[in-house]
């Protein structure tokens, strides 16, 4: 298969040029006439996006999402590689579950799927899972996401043992004894009569993780940072040379706890939406590279799990189909990041952390490409999403950066006008 994209703005800038793809790779020139010639009309041509943190729900929760619907949704968002967390049923804590996910994704998926294995068997926080055997089947990191690595002792063992296999531990930071709540703790939780989760719950565990990584001289990755204090500690740790990397999500720089007003369960996520002060700190953290990457934490839920009382509703929002546009609209158009920096946060940086060999348009790289219209605004409509989930707080938002075309491994996985 030979594809030629013409009238491309590579990385959104420079003169219009062409991009050639052949047999799954980016090439300088095609060996023969292209099978498909696509005029992208001056749209921005970027490396396919890489999501280091999402939930595809398969196996076990296919009523929420499955590998097909999830990767179709990812493709519509411009993602070509996604890393699903292991909180499936059964838990992705052994090589056979990893193998089944990878096989299904290869045969039926619309994106590369690189699973993340569990830190502990059954996510129970007790015994180490089989990192080595899981890596042979394709995991790229380990995490007990959805819950924190339960104890400092387990985290120490996980970091050490994972280092034998060159895997990084990605930790969901939340001190559970402080986290008996359903939204950010503050004036708003008081006013709504909802139990709050203090920023301290997140900060305390980020501190623990940094201390251990520094003590061991090994790497730790902090998941979905939402607090000002977390950004500050990570910044200071990086300055000292601690091997810490960190991610945040679009909702932590676009929304505050105010989205919970009216008891809107689409704003119920964990970590919870924080305050304006925190969103500003998150943006500053992205700007000075304290935060290395933007992930979606795509977390589809069934309507029946969201259309209920706030405290009983599940945590999570879907994210694939809004992530880039939110980043572009709220970070690039506001001058916080350059387009290059945003693209690095959403492709090269996660790719480098997880060693996926992606996030570039250099010749010889896998033909993972995403094309976005950066000039015309669009109104985001939740009912047009390809994910099974409808749990998004962004319905009706006017955004910039609509996906036009996604190519994964030289195959077209999403095309707006077809």
């Amino acid at each position, binding site marked *: 298969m030979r594809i030629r994209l013409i009238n491309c703005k590579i990385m959104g800038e420079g003169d219009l040029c062409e991009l050639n793809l052949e047999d799954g790779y980016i090439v300088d020139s095609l060996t023969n006439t292209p099978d498909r010639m696509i005029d992208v009309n001056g749209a921005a041509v970027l490396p396919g996006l890489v999501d280091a943190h999402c939930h595809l729900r398969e196996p076990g929760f296919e009523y929420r999402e499955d590998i097909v619907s999830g990767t179709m949704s990812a493709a519509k968002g411009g993602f070509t590689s996604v890393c699903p967390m292991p909180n499936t049923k059964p838990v992705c804590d052994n090589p056979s579950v990893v193998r089944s996910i990878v096989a299904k994704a290869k045969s039926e998926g619309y994106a590369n799927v690189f699973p993340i294995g569990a830190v502990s068997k059954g996510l129970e926080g007790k015994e180490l899972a089989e990192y080595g055997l899981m890596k042979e089947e394709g995991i790229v990191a380990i995490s007990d996401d959805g819950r924190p690595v339960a104890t400092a002792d387990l985290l120490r063992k996980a970091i050490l043992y994972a280092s034998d296999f060159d895997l990084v531990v990605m930790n969901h930071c939340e001190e559970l004894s402080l986290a*008996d709540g359903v939204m950010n*703790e*503050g*004036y*708003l*939780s*008081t*006013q*709504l*009569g*909802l*139990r*709050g989760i203090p920023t301290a719950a997140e900060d305390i565990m980020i501190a623990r993780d940094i201390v251990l990584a520094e003590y061991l001289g090994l790497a730790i990755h902090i998941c979905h940072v939402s607090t000002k204090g977390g950004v500050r500690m990570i910044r200071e740790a990086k300055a000292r040379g601690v091997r810490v990397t960190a991610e945040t999500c679009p909702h932590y720089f676009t929304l505050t706890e105010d989205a919970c007003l*009216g*008891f809107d369960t689409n704003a119920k996520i964990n970590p919870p939406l924080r305050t304006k002060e925190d969103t500003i700190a998150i943006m500053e953290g992205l700007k000075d590279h304290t935060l290395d990457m933007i992930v979606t934490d795509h977390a589809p839920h069934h309507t*029946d799990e969201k*259309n*209920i*009382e*706030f*405290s*009983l509703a599940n945590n999570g929002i879907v994210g694939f189909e809004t992530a880039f546009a939110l980043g572009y609209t709220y970070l690039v158009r506001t001058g916080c990041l350059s387009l290059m920096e945003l693209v690095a946060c959403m492709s090269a940086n996660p790719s480098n952390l997880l060693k996926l060999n992606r996030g570039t348009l250099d010749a010889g790289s896998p033909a993972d490409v995403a094309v976005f219209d950066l000039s015309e605004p669009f109104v985001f409509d939740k009912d047009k999403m390809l994910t099974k989930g409808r749990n998004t707080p962004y319905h009706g938002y006017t955004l910039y950066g609509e996906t036009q075309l996604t190519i994964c491994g030289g195959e077209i996985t999403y095309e707006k006008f077809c």
Partner: protein
Amino acid sequence: MTLRNKDLLGMKELSAEEISEILKTAQVMKMVMKSGNKKTSHLQGKSVVTLFYENSTRTRLSFEMASKFMGAASANVSTSGSSVNKGESLLDTARTIDMMATDIIIMRHNQSGAPHFIAPHVDASIVNAGDGMNEHPTQALLDMYTMQDKFGSLDGLEVAICGDIFHSRVARSNAIGLTKMGAKVRVSGPATMMPIGFEKMGAKVCRNISEAVYGADIVMGLRLQLERQTKSLFPSVAEYAKFYSISEQVLSLAKPGALVLHPGPCNHGVEMPSSVYDSSQSAINEQVANGVAVRMAVLYLLNVRRNQE
């Protein structure tokens, strides 16, 4: 004037004018209650259902009496003995009640925001009779009625609310409502039971109960909600009673003739001793009577609004 909204969800949603209108209407209803013939036809041909997911004596009964005094067909659904015990969702339960030509659903639920969640899904008007730790608007309205009855106006009144503020929907609704009406609210309680940012709701957070009660026109106790305590927020009931109750000594710091209120049910000897509960300053029994009048007013005004649609 009529109410702006189909539902009565909380004091947050009511304007000062609406609160005044409800309190004024309640005065008329109080006269009906005192008359020999406790019957009006304001809700004739209307139906009112109480849907309670939590235990209640006075709130539920006062809504039922209010409905009956005004001629409504009334019925109640309680969680025990209903399909709720078969696992029926709140939404399905509420829609089921709605489809039986119900005009007003009085709802109590242990989850904050449950009535707000249901309101847009039903034609009936929803009256919040207490949702989790969020609000209990008719309790605040009857408290305000009781204060206004005694002092003539709410403007400038100094109101001390004492006890477990964190779990209290009564404290929230009163703080919001009283502030809207120009009263000055201060609160006190164990620091572990003082929710963050309560001062932003217009209340002054005091360091101890003496500071809160000093010079107050009204001293309101709150029930220590033992069933809502999921964490050990205080060491013992005995210690709570010693340091946080409205004792006679504490009450003596208030203005002479200050009113003592309590939403009930009271843990005697914990929130206040029986000597305070039964004192001449206590208006706790009047609160119960006023509760019926205020709820009649709420039902009446919601029905007026429904008839205009």
